[in-house]
């Protein structure tokens, strides 16, 4: 498991143990990854987060356009695997969860323990935001070197 901030880890570990989910991703509503479990490459996590955020955003917008109450959760059920996507509010803003589960559990259990996860995250979130200034003043030469290397220049 990897998490952006340590306070997310315990609630997420509890959710994983209880729900028996295979992959779990927490992200901001703009698709930035907060925490993840079960992915092998960080770059794959980013693609999954972008698509998950896109699906939920499109679903919410569709509900709004059709004059429906907000739709904060979507479930896709396949033969072997299912996907549960849900939006929720935390003290740090609106987050989204993406859960992939197999036959060892069920959508109902995932939903039940996901609701608990949301409650526990709400209790665990510290009031203070982390500091913002992180890079050294002279970061630009390093940036230029990294970009140059990336593009083979």
């Amino acid at each position, binding site marked *: 498991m*990897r*998490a*952006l*901030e*340590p306070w997310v880890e315990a609630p997420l570990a509890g959710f994983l143990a209880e729900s028996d989910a295979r992959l779990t991703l927490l992200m*901001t*509503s*703009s*698709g*930035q*990854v907060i925490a993840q479990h079960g992915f092998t*490459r*960080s*770059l*794959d996590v*980013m*693609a999954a987060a*972008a*698509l998950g955020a*896109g699906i939920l*955003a*499109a679903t919410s*917008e569709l509900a709004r*356009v059709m004059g429906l109450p907000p739709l904060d959760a979507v479930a896709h059920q396949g033969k072997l695997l299912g996907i549960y996507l849900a939006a929720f509010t935390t003290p740090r803003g609106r987050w989204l969860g993406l859960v992939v589960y197999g036959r060892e559990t069920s959508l109902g259990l995932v939903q039940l323990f996901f609701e608990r996860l949301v409650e526990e995250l709400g209790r665990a979130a510290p009031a203070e935001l*982390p500091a*913002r*200034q*992180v*890079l*050294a*003043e002279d*970061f*630009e030469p*390093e*940036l*230029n*070197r*990294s*970009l140059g*290397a*990336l*593009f*083979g*220049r």
Partner: protein
Amino acid sequence: MPLVNFTTREITCKLVYYGPGRSGKTSNLLYIHGRVPEHRRGTMVSLATQSDRTLFFDFLPLELGVISGFTTRFQLYTVPGQVYYNATRRLVLQGADGVVFVADSQARRFDDNLESFQNLQENLLDQGVDIRQLPLVLQYNKQDLPADLILAPPDLDDALNFRAVPSLPADALHGSGVFESLKALSALVLQRLAVPR
């Protein structure tokens, strides 16, 4: 603001390529995808129509390397340019840390550029973001076309570049200006995380 993981020392930035339909936003990402080593990029996700127009977004995650001790990643998105896809453009723009506005340099697309740029300002404003506060780079694409078909960068600057942000000529199909645009925007976005001078 870019997302910073202090525990694992990682920075993730969301960069959006915006502009009118067929201006070359997806071409920028395709060029980058083709040039960057496989281990430094993820799968390029393209949600497109049957005629290959972007329907929702294109997405390309990049791993830049270590900057000031932080592993830095970029999430590159394009928006659909066609006028009628505004709802999806707004969704993709959410939480953007910076924008490359890809203008089509062809003289006949002048009004489309203006309309798209105004649309960018409106969509940002809807999300409570003042375009003057957002890192922005203008890319004047298709500068490789015959001179009688296109507007020169100074003319496009007069029409679009009120804030004197970085502006770059480009030929995204062949790569000219693509790297430079990404570099210019990256620097602007990361400057916000740097210790003030």
